């Protein structure tokens, strides 16, 4: 212990002793089975299955349209998600998705802590997968510790090579699945196999192979401890009502071994339920001691709960010495008060309300959006033209998006003004019409001419495009200007 010296200011001129950098302590997590382990397996299985198989799911959109259910078509600038097709100008749907994603993280955190970190985060899932490969080849914690301590014979080397080979294969498959979302999956698999795929595909696979291998094989908990911003953010978002993986120190302390417990109790002392077997620390994938309280390193995966429960069952003490609980309840238990759970709090209500609102707005705009859009851009220079016979003409740029998977012809109708309407390139026919290709945008220049200037310097006009079914497919308002003012 440092001496407490109130008089003299300390710190001035002193230097820090010891190293400025610490070597990462390698974590050797021990195998465990139990409820939370099952949850983690289920999350891993579901998550990875979706990730690896989704590109192969087909969806019928009609002829000449991609058949892949989920496809990011960068070349043609389209995003397909089952029945939804998004154009670049609809990218705001992703803004909505990101808002919902962020708020879902906040909500999860307010209800049950780092659910994302413990069960769903790709870093957790892939590291978990790599751990299980490691355990399968090199054995459990004790064996791995012994083998790594040496001596390193041919057996040690062959096991290491086998492990890294499988890791690399998983990593390669991870990158391989990623690129399948950007092109027709079956075709791309074939062209990858026959070395006919574009270079960028191999580049992406190579990069993701490296990052997966490196982050899940070597960096592991270091990513959570030093790289990820979420532990810091969530630490400032949590409150005393949030469920967290917690050690019930009120029940566990003081730690006394099973043998000594009776002797201590016989002398009238208190012996806590924790027998200090260290199992909770040994199973932890980030090497944290949960008994020291919540920390940045704890991803709250619940494996220490499984470990502690298995010990408590064996020695006949009540389980859930480590459990999901709130800071408040542990404190209340200490004071002999009953636990309180408040899932409905202002913040959980607010998060849920915003998620529901954003979701509803997105759903509404998605279901109510039209297959046809019309944008009218009035010429800025000149605002109007006086032709040689004194007529007034306005020029407009019309942009028509046809989101239907077939070519469509539209007839242009102008209301609000008695005027001659011409479509440049379509001839000065009385019926101005034009065709827009399937899933395409077309721009046409439209000239509107009146023989005399309207009394209103800016007459409100309405452009409508009518489809072959005689229904108005899209409308847009603009002005007919007869004055520069």
């Amino acid at each position, binding site marked *: *212990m*440092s001496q407490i010296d109130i008089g003299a*200011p*300390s*710190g001035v001129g*002193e*230097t*820090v*002793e*010891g*190293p*400025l*950098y*610490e*070597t*990462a302590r390698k974590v050797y997590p021990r195998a465990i089975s139990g409820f939370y382990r099952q949850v983690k397996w289920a999350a891993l299985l579901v998550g990875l299955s979706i990730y690896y198989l989704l590109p192969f799911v087909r969806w019928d959109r009609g002829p000449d349209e991609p058949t892949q259910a989920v496809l990011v078509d960068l070349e043609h600038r389209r995003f397909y998600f089952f029945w939804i097709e998004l154009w670049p100008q609809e990218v705001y749907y992703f803004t909505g998705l990101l808002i919902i994603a962020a708020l879902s993280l906040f909500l999860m955190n307010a209800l049950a802590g780092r659910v994302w970190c413990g069960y769903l985060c790709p870093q957790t899932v892939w590291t978990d997968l790599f751990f299980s490969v490691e355990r399968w080849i090199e054995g459990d914690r004790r064996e791995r510790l012994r083998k790594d301590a040496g001596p390193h014979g041919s057996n040690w080397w062959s096991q290491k090579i086998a492990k890294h080979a499988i890791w690399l294969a998983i990593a390669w498959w991870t990158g391989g699945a990623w690129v399948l979302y950007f092109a027709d999956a079956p075709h791309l698999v074939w062209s990858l196999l026959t070395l006919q795929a574009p270079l960028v595909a191999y580049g992406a696979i190579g990069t993701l192979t490296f990052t997966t291998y490196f982050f899940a094989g070597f*960096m592991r908990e*270091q990513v959570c*401890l*030093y790289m990820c911003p979420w532990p810091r953010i969530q630490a400032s978002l949590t409150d005393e009502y949030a469920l967290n993986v917690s050690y019930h120190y009120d029940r566990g302390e003081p730690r006394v071994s099973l043998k000594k417990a009776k002797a201590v109790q016989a002398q009238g002392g208190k012996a806590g339920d924790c027998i200090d077997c260290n199992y909770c620390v040994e199973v932890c994938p980030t090497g944290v001691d949960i008994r020291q309280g919540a920390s940045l390193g704890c991803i709250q995966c619940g494996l220490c709960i499984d470990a502690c429960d298995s010990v408590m069952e064996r020695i006949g003490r009540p389980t859930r010495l480590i459990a999901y609980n709130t800071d408040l309840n542990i404190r209340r238990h200490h004071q002999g008060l009953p636990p309180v759970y408040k899932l409905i709090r202002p913040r959980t209500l607010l998060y849920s309300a915003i998620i529901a609102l954003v979701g509803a707005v997105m759903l509404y705009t998605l279901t109510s959006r039209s297959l046809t859009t019309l944008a009218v851009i009035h*010429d*800025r*220079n*000149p*605002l109007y*033209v*006086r*032709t*040689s*016979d*004194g007529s007034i*003409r306005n*020029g407009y740029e019309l942009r028509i998006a046809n989101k239907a998977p077939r070519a469509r012809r539209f007839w242009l109708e102008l209301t609000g003004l008695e005027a001659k309407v011409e479509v*440049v*390139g*379509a001839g000065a026919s009385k019926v101005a019409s*034009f*065709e827009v290709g399937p899933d395409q945008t*077309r*721009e046409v*220049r439209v*000239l509107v001419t009146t023989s005399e200037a309207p009394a209103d310097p800016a007459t409100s006009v309405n452009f409508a495009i009518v489809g072959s079914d005689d229904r108005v497919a899209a409308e847009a308002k603009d002005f007919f200007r007869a004055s520069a003012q």
Partner: protein
Amino acid sequence: MAEGHPHFDAKTGRTTTGHEWDGIQELNTPLPRWWLWTFYACIIWAFGYWVLYPAWPLVTGSTQGLFGWHARNAVTQDVADLKSLRAPSTAKLETASLEDIEKSPELLTIARAQATALFANNCAPCHGAGGGGAKGYPNLNADRWLWGGTLKEIQTTITHGARWDADKDTHSSLMPSFGKDGILKQPEIVATANYVRSLSGLPTEAGADLALGKKTFADNCAACHGDDGKGNKEMGAPNLTTKVWLYGPELSDIVNRITVGGGGQMPAWGLKLNGEEIKALTVFVHSLGGGQ
């Protein structure tokens, strides 16, 4: 890092840096060593950068780097890539006639898209962003043309310009300075200006001598502007009977034109742009609305 260390914090089980402010001590939280190695790797990367890419400023320039990379070359390369990407489209513009380009929705779209950029770069400074023109700079949206408004005539004007000495085929005719050179006297000029206004139905000054104006016009102006004032596109002489005025319809505007004469200048774009670019621009200008 244990108890017995001079700066040990019992609460966290860690050492402190030994620094203390108002009773608060700073925990010693060392960075991971891999972070240090990443930092060193970045420094080595930087050295590589210095050698391979332009990096150090010198008195008159900078070190060039072994790769010979230069931002200007990168832009040139990007432009070349874009050109080769557009080559199939531009090849179509080259072979198609102006009329065919305007008739085909596909070619018209290509031509207008290409010409929008060309127009903004080359034509907009005088004719305005949308070809709206200004006093002395023709409005390309209107249907009155000094040198003719058919596709062919627009192409010729863009290629050779107006009063541009570097091109011998340029439109070269010039309006005389009737007032400045003393060819006409002030009352004759005012009378002529009034007469010119009457040609397009604009009101004339009270007491204007339209007869003198008409005679002066017939003697001096009709050679180029025609007996009826309808102009002559061979001479670039505007039609004076319309509602479109290049220099303004006011009496003072017209008096000024007759006094000073002359005419605007336009570069011969054939000297700078290639044939396919001029074709695109021709169709673009023609499609603005006033093409004939």
